[in-house]
């Protein structure tokens, strides 16, 4: 009896040992943005250090999201690591679908992760996804055009100032639009922008009883301000402009200001891609004097689905990809401006990095966003530009489609808000909130 027990223990030890030592192949689902593609290019470094091979499934953001959601909710096990965001992590963590990341090595220094990031990627105090990079949103503006308009950008401007500055910079004959903003349908595109903006106007998605709030004045104010400003100073066809389109417009000198993800700063200041690289200034996203700014908070993070057969190897990968060493590795190959930003405190204590022109403003923007307290009036949800409830993605996509139809001139603001109100309440009812 005792011998059997001992033998069993021995066998377990052997298996445990084998699973640590054996080279495995892990499958990682990820999004096709620049930082992630750079990481794929550096995979050899990971393989050399650990012996594990990596197979990549790289997908466009929307496809990735439906693909990993299907897999995790059915416990399909197709992936060992999934790239997810701040929206998914708390929901999936709550469902027990993710492996807790509270036992990462001392060397990894989990306490170094920016509190805003670890907070947004945790549920009930447990970290469920490690941030690869984090972002807020801020104003990127053309210093030369500001000067030409005889204006000076404050560190923390108001919406009124932005609207005036945009009008002053607009020069449609020369293809210069005062301001470029996202109007594209989709909860992560125009939906994210207008939600973050509405926070500064005192709007919220739900009241404390989960009733939709699109029939309130702050929402109408937000849309009226947005549409008015874009008609005065925005580019033609902004109803279909998302991150990519605006990036391209800004890089070609067609925008005076652009309020978008802080990670875009490294693209607009990169002289290889941007014609205005040396003329870009940064400022905090605007507010309206109500105590909330209109910047969001987001992170792309790596998580391990519960039940993964290769948990140990997957953890090794996450430790490698989100480590301080990885940041050093990228810096040595591509320069400090191209390291994944916004995830670690130590990065912002590094004098090399603080020389990068957008480093300080990125950090300041991240620090002013608070997912747990994002609206002027009290709200029942967590999240700045989203509400971390499972129904939100579907609802917000439909709502943003109604808004985009306004931007394209196909319906009025009142019509869109009425539809948004009805469809949101209907979906919340279907999900059992009422």
């Amino acid at each position, binding site marked *: 009896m005792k011998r059997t027990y001992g033998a069993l223990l021995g066998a377990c030890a052997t298996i445990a040992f084998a699973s640590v030592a054996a080279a495995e192949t892990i499958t990682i689902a990820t999004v096709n943005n620049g930082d992630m593609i750079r990481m794929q290019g550096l995979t050899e470094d990971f393989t050399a250090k650990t012996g594990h091979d990596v197979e990549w499934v790289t997908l466009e953001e929307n496809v990735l999201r439906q693909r990993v959601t299907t897999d995790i909710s059915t416990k399909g096990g197709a992936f060992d690591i999934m790239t997810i965001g701040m929206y998914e992590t708390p929901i999936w963590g709550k469902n027990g679908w993710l492996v807790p990341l509270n036992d990462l090595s001392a060397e990894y220094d989990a306490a170094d992760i920016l509190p805003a990031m670890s907070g947004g990627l945790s549920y009930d105090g447990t970290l469920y996804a490690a941030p690869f990079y984090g972002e807020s949103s801020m104003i990127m503006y053309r210093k030369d055009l500001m000067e030409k308009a005889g204006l000076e950008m404050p560190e923390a401007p108001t919406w009124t100032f932005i609207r005036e500055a945009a009008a002053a910079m607009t020069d449609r004959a020369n293809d210069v639009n005062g301001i470029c903003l996202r109007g594209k*349908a989709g909860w992560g595109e125009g939906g994210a922008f207008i939600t973050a903006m509405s926070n500064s106007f005192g709007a919220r998605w739900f009241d404390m009883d989960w009733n939709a709030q699109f029939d309130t004045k702050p929402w109408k104010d937000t849309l009226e301000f947005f549409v008015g400003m874009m008609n005065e100073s925005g580019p033609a066809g902004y109803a279909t402009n998302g991150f990519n389109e605006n990036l391209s417009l800004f890089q070609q000198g067609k925008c005076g200001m652009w309020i978008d993800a802080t990670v875009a700063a490294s693209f607009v200041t990169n002289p290889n891609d941007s014609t205005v690289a040396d003329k870009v200034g940064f400022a905090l996203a605007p507010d309206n004097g109500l105590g909330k700014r209109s910047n969001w908070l987001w992170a792309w993070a790596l998580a391990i689905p519960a039940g993964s057969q290769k948990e140990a190897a997957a953890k090794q990968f996450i430790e490698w990809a989100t480590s301080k060493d990885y940041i050093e590795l990228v810096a040595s190959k591509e320069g400090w401006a191209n390291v994944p930003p916004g995830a670690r405190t130590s990065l912002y204590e590094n004098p090399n990095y603080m020389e990068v022109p957008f480093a300080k403003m990125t950090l300041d923007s991240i620090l002013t966003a608070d997912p747990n307290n994002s609206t002027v009036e009290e709200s029942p949800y967590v999240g700045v530009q989203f509400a971390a409830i499972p129904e939100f993605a*579907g609802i917000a996509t439909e709502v943003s*489609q109604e808004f*985009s139809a306004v*931007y*394209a001139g*196909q319906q009025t603001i009142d019509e869109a808000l009425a539809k948004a109100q009805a469809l949101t309440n*209907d979906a919340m009812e*279907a999900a*059992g909130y009422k």
Partner: protein
Amino acid sequence: MATQHSRSAARLMLAPAVILLLGWMLVPLIMTLYFSFKNYLPLRGGDLGWAGFENYTRFVTSSSFWPSVATTLIIVGGVLFITVILGIFLAILLNQPMWGQGIVRILVIAPFFVMPTVSALVWKNMFMDPNYGLLAYLWEFFGATPVEWLSKASMPSIITIVSWQWLPFATLILLTAIQSLDSEQLEAAEMDGASATKRFAYITLPHLGRAITVVILIQTIFLLSIFAEIFVTTGGAFGTKTLSYLIFQRVLESQNVGLGSAGGVYAIILANIVAVFLMRIVGKNLDA
């Protein structure tokens, strides 16, 4: 003619295909029906019990439902109309004697080989983009303001993209049919002094009847479920949400499988209405 023996042999040979398809139809159909009566929310832990007919009423009373049915029918109808008319024209043109006939045929059928995702991406970015698209340059060249195709003319744009993809198929089938037309009959008519229009209306068109039927039938089946073209270009915005796209939104974006399944049942009903309708109009042409 057929003996008892060959009859049973025939049944035996038909069996694998029928059984497989029956399985492929029944298993998902039964599962769809089952889920449609359930409160099935994967992100809230899956099966939350029976829902009665709630999913069904909720799906039809949504403000998106009837517009999505209309959108579906307009896209299917628009594409059918364009591909059949242009297909007849192209088939007649390609059947004329000319130099380099083989190469021209290759050029015309090429879009059929392009993946829907790729063709949607190419059209959206390189042609219909209001800033960098080729059509925008063309408009500017003629001094016009570039059209914001995918927002302000969303339906015509999508119909154009889908028609471009399916025109080769229609052309191929109609061309094969035209090639089988007895040219002596046309010549005789020409001798008798029948005009080109008359020859087309009284000889060519009736001869093409069956081919047109086939084109309409096959294309309808594929067009009812187009997805990639909308997903890539507008994402369902600007009034381009078809019924199958609406179901996609309910199942994958809202993660409400029960509600989506009820939508699936409506989609099957719509498909069958269209099918019966088609059979009434064109079925007599098809003594399959």
